[in-house]
């Protein structure tokens, strides 16, 4: 057993696990009881499990707890709250930009990281940026998600 400490959505979390290779995703689901990071493939192929680690979008299903210790983790529920949603979340809501919503952590967090570095990014640039890693939406709500991300890139929510 080894103890690992990390920060999850601003709160400290210490976990004891026997295997340092335990993927961060399961720690976030079971120990931090988060709903935002989701299991899709466990293979780094879909993006459902995406979180920010120190501001960098990362697939938590293929990230070991031992590599996450000492770092700051942000999941989509750490972006905003019901009373005060993040502008990106507001844009997704205003554009009704999903069907089942299971995939949302991927486009939201990879999109946010790119747009925050590239304000005013165009829809094509955003789509291209999301294509730099493997991300899926099986409901195929891509078009609306691009609209939501583009609004965010323009500093708008609707």
């Amino acid at each position, binding site marked *: 057993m080894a103890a690992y400490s990390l920060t999850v959505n601003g709160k400290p979390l210490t976990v004891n696990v026997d295997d340092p290779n335990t993927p961060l995703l*399961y720690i976030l689901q079971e120990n931090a009881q988060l709903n935002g990071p989701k299991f*899709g493939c466990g293979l780094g192929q879909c993006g459902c499990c995406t979180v920010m680690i120190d501001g960098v979008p990362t697939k938590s299903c293929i990230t070991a707890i031992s590599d996450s210790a000492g770092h700051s983790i942000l999941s989509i*529920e750490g972006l905003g709250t019901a009373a005060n949603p993040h502008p990106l979340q507001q844009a997704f809501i205003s554009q*009704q930009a999903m069907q089942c*919503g299971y995939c949302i952590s991927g486009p939201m967090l990879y999109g946010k990281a790119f747009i925050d570095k590239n304000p005013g990014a165009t829809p094509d640039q955003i789509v291209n940026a999301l294509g730099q890693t493997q991300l899926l*939406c099986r409901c195929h709500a891509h078009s609306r998600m691009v609209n939501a991300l583009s609004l965010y890139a323009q500093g708008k929510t609707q």
Partner: protein
Amino acid sequence: MKLGNLFDTFKRSQMTPDAHVALKKLEKARSGASRRDFVKTAGGLVIGFSALGAASQADAQSPINVTGLVDASKVDSWVSIGSDGDVTIYSGKCEFGQGFSTVQVQLGAEELYVPLSQVKLVYCDTGYTPDQGTTSGSQSHIAEFGPSGLRSALATARQALLQLAAQWFDTTPDQLVIKDGVISVKSDATQSISYGELVKGARFNLAIDNNAPLKDPATYTVLGTSVPRMDIPAKALGTHTYVHNVRLPGMLHGRVVRPPFVGAKVMSVNQGSVASLPGKVQVVVVKDFVGVVADTQWHAIQAAGLLDVTWSSGATLPDQASLYTWMTQQPSADTMVVDTGDTEAVMASAAKTFSAQYVHPYQMHGSIAGSCAVADVRGGTGKTATAKIWSPTQGVYPQRDSVAVVLGIPPANVRVIYVEGSGCYGLNGNDSVSYDAALMSQAVGKPVRVVYSRRDEMAAGESYGQPYVVNFKAGVDKGGQLTVWQYDSWTATKGNRPNATTPGNIVSGALAGFVTPPLVPAAAKVPTTFSNNGNSQCSYITGQIAGAPPQGTGTVASQRVLTRTIASPFFTGPLRSPSRLQNTFANECFMDEIAVSLGQDPVQYRLRHLSDPRLIAVVNAAASAAAWVSRPSPNVSIIPNAKVRTGRGISCVLYEGNNGYSALVAEVSVDMTTGVVTCTRFVTAIESGPISNPNGMINQTEGGVMQAMSRCLKEQVKWNAKSGIITTSDWNSYPVYNWGERVPVLKTVLLNNLKVSQTGAGECSITLSASAIGNAIFDAIGVRIRQIPYTPATVLAAIQAASGK
């Protein structure tokens, strides 16, 4: 308490205050409490599992049978009004991202004249909600707006409320008006009473009255507007409770261990192989079902990977390369869908005839989540055992009845609570995984959550969409008018949705020892009733059954449509637009071929053979919104040696022969050097009767078109017949449309038809992409590709074959 009866003897307006108090006591004594009082409402409007689920810790202790038998013929099974006047709706149609929960809340607000905020919705829980079968097949609008559905229940409730208020005010219902859940006397607004005061939490005790007056859709103020989906905020905030997020006290984590080859049986399981692993691993074996249970997901995953199981060799599989020929050689169960008996004669006298074969592969639902369920089975098996299953199944009642059989527990002791998973698009692994969780929980006596790995899901858990082979022959007269149409198809099935008698219809039930009903070969019979449920009949024939008026959408009088079903080596089940997508791909591409070879514009040629004004309307609407220019195909304006060529194609369908109408124009570009097809724009026109929620309908239409684009460009289940292994087991081996690829421009035209009944919309557009894209590819490259998927290799081979000629 019968709301109406009480007031036959007492007119409240004539009562003394004392009598009033006495009556209240009487009411209290006689009334059953409203079912709503059982449901703790939380912030959100749609309760579903979200609010019940937030209380899932407590819910783990809640009873199996919450309300007694839910009788769908009774108003109380559908709607209750709390003492605060809030309306709670109970429905057997679930939310899985298609937006229907919001539409149901709109319907409640509309028919009962209450604000949206005053309507709560509980759906798909065998403890609370009526049995409405499955949520599938674009049937939800038809069920809820049709006779004996939610709308009729609400209308009956409104009628009862008005009668009650009329007695209260000593007047007649027509003298009353309802606004925001308050009934007042038209001539004297000071005389008013709220639903809450009127009903005081009592039950209606009324049967649904299908003659209760329904609100005219032309007067709708809430339906027909784009009320934002009520499930979206929590999903965007990351707080939404999916089934994956159900957490019960003492819950353990299970994983399945599937046969490596199709059809392999367990020879032996070496339990010692995982004995030294961390996580208090337990091994569960039920015939050929094998699972492991541990304290955490990671421990369960490792144990599943390391468990040493000896499997028998698998079943003999057909060679994939010759699948379609093999299909046509197997014993089959045949159905003559329509046959006017004259097709051979008419064909013989045709001025010109056409023939072609179209083929469609097995495809996956390929849900983005690993299917997941949580089960809490107590007391083992037998009469006193109980089970609660938190499941993303499309049918809570069929699952309750079949899980009961699997566990050997009376159905009355089983409660299935729907909790949303990721989009399922039909019978993915959601039902199988619910059996898995139940079997493992029963074995270990603790609540167990099971999630499928990608391979569990794709290569050993889900029920694939059916493959198809379709052979056509058609003939035209001298003027180019179609005179005869013959369709012959082969498809393959194994299993289907499970119910009480067929738990072996899905993978886990079969592994646990339940028989998968075998296909029984049978000769076709003469059809006696019209049905185009599978869309095997193209849109251009009359649908003529002897002795009945034609019920098809077209004008071609001589027709024969024969379908054959063979035994599939793989489990199959409904995949969004089952059979209809495959048939429409074939029908609409073949129709295009005929138009092309006659030098006719594909839109005009279709219109020449259509008779149904609603189908004609969507074809015209799509063509006009796409600025379709009438010309023959292929596109001669393109530069002959251009590296990239562009094309457009059209397709149309009346979904299931009696559901929603839609037409789609697809625009593509094709790289002549690589064979890569890129879709650049889709223009859809859709008409499903009165529109409930325009934004939601557009969302569904867009998603359908795009999902089918992925399916027809990329998706195909693959296997190795020698090794018996399904080789498409992750997103690299089963490629799909990815982020980063061009997102086509989407344009959707909604036709709001208030003169007809509500029908479905969710599976209309998805039915069309394969054919519209196929026709657009032909328009671009001048070569017809008659197989799905249109992969670069297939397209390039077709281009090269054509240019080599």
